C-alpha cells in the first residue's frame, strides 16, 4: 500500500494562503500598473496633441501679428512642464526659431535638438499634417505640428510651413508608478490578509491541539508506556481518530499478549531441535539458545543471554585461523539469509573446536522489519572429513583431466558446453571456461562439418560412440583440424546425461596431407621431373617424364639417367654441366637426349641440387620440357627470316650474309667470286595476264631450274618479285678463268630458260636478263656489288633481253669476243675455214715415217687463228666433237689418197684426240665410221691421247681403246711424262707409242735431270715394247742425244714445221 503523504499543517496552511494572497496581489498590481501606464500614455498623448494644436494656432496668429515676443513666451511656457524635454519652433528649413532652450535658437535642428527626426519633419512639410508618435518603449512622445507662416512681402499666402516639434518625456510619470501602486494597495492587502489569516489560525488551533494529544499518546506508547488512551470527544474527525486510536490500542495489547505467548512456544521448539539454534534481538544480542547450541558453544543460556553474538559464537576460518565474518551482523546489515563460509570452525568456550555448517536468517515481524536473527548450525566435522577425501579425489581427477594434452569436454543434449579442460579451451581459443560455458560448441565448427558434428552428438546421446574429423574456427579466428572421439556419459541409473568428447588437434597432420597433395600435384606437371639420390640414381619420375622419354618408372628406377644420352654432346659438355651443378647446385640449358624409341630430341633441362638440414646434398631434381616443337618453330622462324617462303630460296638477308662471308673468304683465299643478277624479262606481263597464282608457280619453277644450274656450294637467292641472284663462290683465282667459269654458268642459265614453263597445263615462256659482277679480295661492299650487278643486268635488258652482261667492260668485251669467236667457229666448219696441217715425223735414218695432223683455222679476216685461242673454246662449247670428227674424216681420206702414191703409201697419220671427243660414247663408232667411209687402212691411223685424258674413267678408256685396237688403230700417249699415270696403269693400256713431251726434249742437253728422265722414258718404252717418239726436237744435239738414248723417231722444227698438205707432199719429194 502506498503511503499517503502528509504535510505539516501548522506550517503549510498559512504559508499557502500567504503565498496565494501575495501572488494575487502582485498579479493585480501588475495588471493595474499596465492599465495606469496605458492611461498615462493615453492622457499624455491627448495632452500633447491638444497643446501642440493650440500652440500651433496661437503661434500662427502671433506670427501673423508679427509679435515674436508672444511666440517666444508661448514656447517658453512649455519649459515649466517637467515632462517636456524640449519644444522648438522650426522654420521650413528645420532651423530653430524659438525654443525652450535658448541656446538652440538659430541652429540647425538636426544638430542640437535631441530626438529630431528629419524624416518626420519632411513628412510634415509635405503633408502639412501633424505627426504624433510614441518612441519604441513608449517612454516618449514626439510631436511634429505644422505651423502656418505668415506671408512675406509680396506673397499673398505663404507656402512656408513651420514645425513645432515637441519631445515629451513620460518616464518621470512612469517611474513612481510601481511604488505608488504598491503603497496604495499595500494597505488593502495587509488588511485582507489579516482578515483571512485570523480565522484560519483559530481553525488550525482546533485541529492542532487534539492532534498533538494524539501524537504524544502514540509516542508514549511507542516508548513503552502501555497504558495510553486518548480522551477526545466530539463529532469531528479528530474525535473519530481518537476513538480509532483507543480501539487500536486495545487490539494492540491483545496482540502483544499473543506475541509473548508464541515467544514462549518458540522457546520450547527451539530446545527440541537437533541442530544448534541461537536467536538474537535486533542488536545482535543473544536472546535464546537451545541445548545443542549450549553444548557446542560451551555457554549456558543464562550466562549468554544479552551478550553479543560474537562473544558466544566464536568462529574462525579453518584455513587462516582468522575470525570469520559474523553472520548475525551480516544478516542485520543486509536483511538476507546468510550461509557461513566453508571451513568455518567454532571454538567453544573450553577451547574445543568443531567444524560447523550453518545459516543465519533474519527474524521479521509481520511488517517485515527485522526484530532479530536466528542462527542455526551443526557439527559437521565428520562430514568435513568425508568431503575432504572427496575433494582430494576430485582434485586428482581434475588434475588428470586438466593436464591432458588433448581436449576433454562434456556437452549436453543440445550441444552446449558443460565442461572443458584447459587443453580444450586452448584449442578453441577461449580465454576462460566462463567465456564458453553453456554455449553451443557447434557454433565454432565450420559449416561444412556442422551437420556431421551434430549427427555425431545425436548418435552419442542415443548410446553410440563415434569419431569425427572436422575443422573449427576458434574464438580468435584461428582455424584448426580436430579429431574427436565421443562417448555417452551415464549417471548411476544408466541414463545418458552428457557427451564426453576427447579431441585431438590434427591440424599439423592435415596440413602435412595438404602439402603432400600439393607436392604430388606439382609433381605431375607437364614438365618431366626426375628425382635422383646423391649418386644420381633415379628415385622418382613423374608421368610427364614417361610421356616425353618413353620410359616407364619400372624401367628407370635405380638407374643413372645416362641412358638418355643422345651422343650429340661431347664429354666436355657433361663435365662442365656437372661442375656447375656441384658449385652452384643449379644448371639450366639445352640438351639433346634420346627417347626410348631412339629418337633424338632437344630438351630444356633444369637440374637443382637439394640439401638436407645438415647441408648435405641428398637429391638432384631434374625438370625438363621437350622443346622439339619449339626448335622446329625456331627453325621455321629462322627460315622465314632467311628464306623466301614462296620459292624456298635464300632471301635478301641471307644472301647479304653469304655475300659478306664470301667476300671475306675471297679476301683470304684470293679466289674470285661472282654474282649474277637475274631479272625475268616479261614476268610482269605474265603476272598481270595470267594472274598472280600462275606467276608464283612460275617463280617456283624458275627457282628450281636455277638451282640445277649451280653447284651445291653456290647460292641461288630470290631478292623479291622476279629478281634472282646467283652467287658463285670460290671460283678460280685467275680472273680470266673465273670469268670463263661464270660464263659457263651464265650460259647454262640462259639455256634453261629456253624451255618453256608449263604451269597448269599451259606453256609460258620467259627469258632472263643477267647482270654479272665479279668480286675479288673484298674490293667492293655487298651493296656496291649488287648495284653493279644490277646495272649490268639493266645493260643486258637494254641489249635486248635474254642476255648476259658483265659489269666490267673488259670482261664484257672478252665475253663478247669469245662469243664471236664461237659463232665464227661454228661457221668455220661448213665454210671450210679449218685446214689440216702436217708435221713430219722422221726416223733416225732421216726417213719420213709419218706426220702428226694439226688443226689450223684460216679465218678470212683474222688470218690464221692460233689453236691456243680456239681449241679451248671448241672444247668448252663442245664444238670440238664436230671439229674432231671432221679432222678424223679428213685424215682418213688423206690416208686413202696417199695409198695410191708410193711416196706416201707407208706414211702414218697421228691425229690428236681431245678429251671431250674421246669421252663421247660414240667415239669408237665415229672412228670406225671415218675409216669405213674413207676406206683407209686402220693400221695407218694413230690416235694421240693425252695422259690426263687417259687417266679419267680408266675402265671406259681401256674398253674404247681395245675396241679400236681391234680395228687395227694405233694409240700414242701424247705429252708423256707430264701426267700422273702410274706404271701399272700404263700396263693396262693397249698403247703402241709414247711421245716424249717437248718440255723434256727442249733442255735434254742442258738439264741433267731431264736427260735422265728422257733416258728413263726411252728405256721404259723399250722395255714395255712400245715405240717412242720425241717431240719438239729442235737441235741436232738433241737428236743425237735421243738417238744415243735409243729414241729413233723424232718430230720437231729441226725436221719441219706443220705445213699444209701441198707443202708437205712437196717436201717429201726430196
Amino acid at each position, binding site marked *: 500500500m502506498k503511503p499517503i503523504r502528509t504535510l505539516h499543517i501548522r506550517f503549510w496552511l498559512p504559508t499557502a494562503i500567504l503565498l496565494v494572497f501575495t501572488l494575487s496581489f502582485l498579479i493585480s498590481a501588475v495588471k493595474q500598473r499596465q492599465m495606469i501606464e496605458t492611461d498615462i500614455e493615453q492622457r499624455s498623448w491627448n495632452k500633447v496633441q491638444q497643446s501642440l494644436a493650440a500652440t500651433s494656432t496661437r503661434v500662427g496668429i502671433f506670427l501673423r501679428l508679427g509679435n515674436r515676443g508672444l511666440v517666444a513666451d508661448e514656447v517658453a511656457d512649455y519649459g515649466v512642464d517637467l515632462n517636456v524635454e524640449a519644444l522648438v519652433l522650426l522654420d521650413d528649413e528645420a532651423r530653430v526659431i524659438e525654443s525652450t532652450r535658448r541656446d538652440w535658437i538659430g541652429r540647425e535642428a538636426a544638430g542640437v535638438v535631441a530626438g529630431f527626426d528629419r524624416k518626420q519633419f519632411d513628412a510634415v512639410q509635405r503633408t502639412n499634417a501633424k505627426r504624433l508618435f510614441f518612441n519604441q518603449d513608449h517612454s516618449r512622445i514626439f510631436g511634429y505640428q505644422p505651423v502656418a507662416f505668415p506671408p512675406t512681402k509680396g506673397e499673398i499666402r505663404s507656402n512656408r510651413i513651420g514645425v513645432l516639434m515637441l519631445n515629451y518625456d513620460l518616464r518621470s510619470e512612469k517611474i513612481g508608478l510601481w511604488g505608488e501602486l504598491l503603497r496604495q494597495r499595500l494597505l488593502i492587502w*495587509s488588511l485582507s490578509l489579516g482578515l483571512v489569516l485570523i480565522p484560519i489560525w483559530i481553525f488550525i488551533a482546533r485541529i492542532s491541539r487534539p492532534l498533538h494529544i494524539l501524537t504524544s499518546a502514540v509516542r508514549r506508547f511507542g516508548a513503552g508506556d502501555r497504558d495510553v488512551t486518548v480522551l477526545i470527544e466530539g463529532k469531528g474527525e479528530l474525535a473519530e481518530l481518537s476513538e480509532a486510536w483507543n480501539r487500536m490500542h486495545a487490539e494492540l495489547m491483545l496482540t502483544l499478549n499473543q506475541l509473548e505467548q508464541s515467544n514462549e512456544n518458540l522457546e520450547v521448539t527451539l530446545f527440541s531441535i537437533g541442530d544448534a539454534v541461537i536467536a538474537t534481538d535486533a542488536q545482535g544480542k543473544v536472546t535464546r539458545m537451545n541445548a545443542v547450541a549450549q553444548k557446542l558453544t560451551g555457554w549456558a543460556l543464562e550466562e549468554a543471554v544479552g551478550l553479543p553474538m560474537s562473544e558466544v559464537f566464536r568462529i574462525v576460518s579453518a584455513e587462516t585461523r582468522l575470525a570469520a565474518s559474523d553472520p548475525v551482523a551480516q544478516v542485520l546489515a543486509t536483511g538476507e539469509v546468510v550461509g557461513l563460509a566453508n571451513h568455518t570452525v567454532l571454538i567453544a568456550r573450553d577451547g574445543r573446536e568443531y567444524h560447523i555448517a550453518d545459516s543465519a536468517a533474519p527474524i521479521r515481524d509481520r511488517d517485515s522489519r527485522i526484530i532479530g536473527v536466528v542462527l542455526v548450525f551443526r557439527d559437521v566435522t565428520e562430514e568435513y572429513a568425508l568431503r575432504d577425501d572427496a575433494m582430494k579425489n576430485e582434485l586428482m581427477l581434475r588434475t588428470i583431466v586438466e593436464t591432458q594434452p588433448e581436449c576433454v569436454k562434456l556437452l549436453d543434449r543440445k550441444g552446449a558446453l558443460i565442461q572443458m579442460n584447459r587443453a580444450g579451451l586452448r584449442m578453441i581459443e577461449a580465454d576462460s571456461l566462463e567465456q564458453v560455458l553453456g554455449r553451443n560448441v557447434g557454433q565454432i565448427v565450420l559449416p561444412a562439418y556442422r551437420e556431421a558434428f551434430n549427427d555425431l552428438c545425436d548418435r552419442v546421446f542415443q548410446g553410440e560412440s563415434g569419431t569425427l574429423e572436422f575443422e573449427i574456427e576458434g574464438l580468435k579466428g584461428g582455424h584448426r583440424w580436430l579429431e574427436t572421439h565421443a562417448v555417452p556419459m551415464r549417471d548411476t541409473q544408466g541414463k545418458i546425461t552428457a557427451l564426453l568428447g576427447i579431441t585431438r588437434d590434427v591440424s599439423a597432420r592435415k596440413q602435412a596431407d595438404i602439402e603432400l597433395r600439393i607436392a604430388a600435384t606439382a609433381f605431375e606437371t607437364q614438365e618431366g621431373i626426375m628425382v635422383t639420390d646423391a649418386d644420381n640414381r633415379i628415385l622418382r619420375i613423374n608421368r610427364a617424364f614417361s610421356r616425353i622419354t618413353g620410359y616407364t618408372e619400372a624401367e628407370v628406377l635405380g638407374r643413372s639417367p645416362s641412358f638418355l644420352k643422345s651422343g650429340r654432346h661431347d664429354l666436355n659438355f657433361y663435365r662442365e654441366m656437372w661442375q656447375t651443378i656441384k658449385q652452384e647446385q643449379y644448371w639450366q640449358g639445352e640438351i639433346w637426349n634420346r627417347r626410348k624409341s631412339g629418337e633424338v630430341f632437344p630438351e630444356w633441362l633444369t637440374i637443382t641440387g637439394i640439401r638436407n638440414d645438415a647441408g648435405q646434398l641428398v637429391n638432384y631434381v631434374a625438370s625438363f620440357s621437350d622443346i622439339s616443337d619449339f626448335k622446329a618453330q625456331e627453325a621455321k622462324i629462322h627460315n622465314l627470316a632467311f628464306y623466301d617462303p614462296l620459292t624456298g630460296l635464300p632471301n635478301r638477308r641471307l644472301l647479304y650474309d653469304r655475300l659478306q662471308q664470301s667476300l671475306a673468304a675471297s679476301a683470304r683465299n684470293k679466289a674470285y667470286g661472282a654474282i649474277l643478277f637475274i631479272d625475268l624479262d616479261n614476268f610482269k606481263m605474265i603476272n598481270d595476264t595470267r594472274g598472280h597464282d600462275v606467276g608464283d608457280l612460275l617463280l617456283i619453277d624458275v627457282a628450281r631450274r636455277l638451282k640445277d644450274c649451280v653447284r651445291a656450294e653456290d647460292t641461288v637467292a630470290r631478292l623479291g618479285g622476279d629478281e634472282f641472284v646467283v652467287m658463285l663462290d670460290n671460283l678460280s683465282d685467275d680472273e680470266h678463268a673465273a670469268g670463263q667459269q661464270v660464263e659457263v654458268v651464265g650460259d647454262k642459265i640462259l639455256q634453261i630458260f629456253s624451255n618453256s614453263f608449263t604451269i597448269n597445263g599451259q606453256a609460258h615462256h620467259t627469258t632472263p636478263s643477267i647482270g654479272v659482277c665479279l668480286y675479288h679480295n673484298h674490293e667492293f661492299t655487298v651493296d656496291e656489288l649488287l648495284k653493279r650487278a644490277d646495272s649490268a643486268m639493266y645493260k643486258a635488258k637494254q641489249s635486248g633481253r635474254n642476255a648476259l652482261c658483265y659489269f666490267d667492260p673488259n670482261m664484257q668485251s672478252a665475253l663478247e669476243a669469245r662469243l664471236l669467236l664461237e659463232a665464227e667457229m661454228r661457221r668455220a666448219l661448213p665454210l671450210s675455214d679449218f685446214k689440216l696441217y702436217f708435221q713430219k715425223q722422221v726416223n733416225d735414218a732421216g726417213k719420213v715415217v709419218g706426220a702428226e695432223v694439226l688443226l689450223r683455222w684460216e679465218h678470212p679476216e683474222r688470218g690464221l687463228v692460233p689453236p691456243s685461242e680456239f681449241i679451248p673454246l671448241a672444247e668448252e662449247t663442245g664444238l670440238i666433237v664436230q671439229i674432231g670428227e671432221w679432222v678424223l674424216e679428213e685424215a682418213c681420206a688423206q690416208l686413202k689418197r696417199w695409198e695410191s702414191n708410193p711416196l706416201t703409201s707407208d706414211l702414218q697419220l697421228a691425229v690428236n684426240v681431245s678429251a671431250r671427243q674421246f669421252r663421247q660414247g660414240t667415239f669408237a663408232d665415229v672412228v670406225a665410221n671415218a675409216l669405213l667411209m674413207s676406206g683407209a687402212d686402220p693400221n695407218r691411223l694413230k690416235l694421240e691421247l693425252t695422259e690426263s685424258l687417259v687417266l679419267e674413267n680408266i675402265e671406259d678408256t681401256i674398253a674404247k681403246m681395245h675396241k679400236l685396237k681391234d680395228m687395227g688403230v694405233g694409240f700414242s700417249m701424247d705429252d708423256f711424262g707430264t701426267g700422273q699415270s702410274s706404271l701399272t696403269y700404263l700396263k693396262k693400256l693397249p698403247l703402241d707409242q709414247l711421245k716424249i713431251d717437248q718440255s723434256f726434249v727442249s733442255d735434254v742437253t742442258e738439264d741433267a735431270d731431264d736427260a735422265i728422265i728422257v733416258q728413263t722414258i726411252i728405256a721404259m718404252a723399250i722395255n714395255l715394247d712400245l715405240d717412242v717418239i720425241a717431240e719438239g726436237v729442235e737441235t741436232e744435239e738433241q737428236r743425237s742425244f735421243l738417238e744415243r738414248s735409243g729414241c729413233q723417231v723424232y718430230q720437231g722444227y729441226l725436221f719441219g714445221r706443220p705445213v699444209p698438205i701441198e707443202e708437205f707432199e712437196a717436201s717429201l719429194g726430196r
Partner: protein
Amino acid sequence: MMKIRWLASIVLLFSAFYVLGCVSRPVPPLRVATNTWSGYEPLYLARSLGFYSADEIRLVEMNSASKVSDAVRNGTVEAAALTLDEVLSLLQDGIELQVVLVIDVSNGADALVAKAKIDSLQDLRGHRVGYEAGATGAIMLQAAMEAANLHPRDLKLVPLSVDQHLSAWDADKIDAVVTFDPIRAQLLSVGGRVLFDSHQVPGRIVDVLVVRKDAMHKQREHLQRLLSGHFAALDYLGKSPADASSRMSARLGVPPAQVLEQYQGLKFPDCRENRQSLDFSKSELRGVAESLAHLMLDRRLLTKSVSVESLTNPDFLPNCLK
C-alpha cells in the same frame, strides 16, 4: 511561539512593501525660471559644464521677467531668478518665498542707452525713452532723471518689456531705452551710446534667487546643488573666461568677446559674501530691500507694504567660511 513568529513575518512583509513603495518614488527636478540676463547666465554655464543634471534641476528659460514672476506666482516653478523689486511684488501678493542666493549686483549692467544722435542726458528732453515698467526700470529712470535734472514729463516714456527693446530700437520707435545686458550690449553694437548706468547707483539693483517655501523642504538637495553649481560656474568663469564666454554667447546672443564685457558691469558676490548678505540681521541687503520697498510703494509699484523680516535664508548655501 508560532503565532509570534507569524505575526513578525507579516509585519516584516508589510513594511518591506511600504518601504519599496516609498523608496521608488523619486523627487522631481527643481524648476528654476529665469529670463535672459547675463547675470543669470552662470546658472546656464553651470548646466553647460554638466554641474546640473536634468533630473535635479530644470532651468526654465523665459523671455521676460514678468513671465518669470508669473511662473513663481502660479507655482509652475519652484525657484526663480528675479530682481529684488520683483520679489517684493510677489511678497505683496502673499506668495510665500525666500531669497536663498544673491546672484549679482548691477554695476553698470543696467543702463540708459540712447541712439547716436543724442549726445547727453539733457538732450533726451522730448525724446522717446523706452523702459521696462518694473522696478528696475523705474529705479534707473528715476536715477537717470535725477542725474539729468529731468522730470518724467520731459520725456516721452514708452513702456517696453525687455524683449521688445531691440525690435523697437530697430523700428525706430524709441530714441533711447533703459535696458540691461545683453540688450544693452547689443544696442551698443548697433551704434547706441550709454548715457547713464547702474554704476552710478551701485548696490541698488540686485538680482536674487528665490524659492517658494512649499518646495524648499522637498527640493532641499536640489537647491543646494543649484547654489554650489552657481559658485562653481563663477569659478570657471574666472579661470577659463574664453571657454566660458563661448558657452554663454549663444544664449545671450552676443559674441563671446562682448560677453565678458558685460560682466564688467556686474558684481557677483561669492559664497562668503552671500552668507554675509543673507544673514539678514546684519546685512545691508535688508536695508536695500527696505528702501526699495519704500520706493516702490511711492511709485505705486507696490500697493501695500511688505515685510522683509524673513526674506532671506542662507541654509542652502554650500559650506564656506563665515
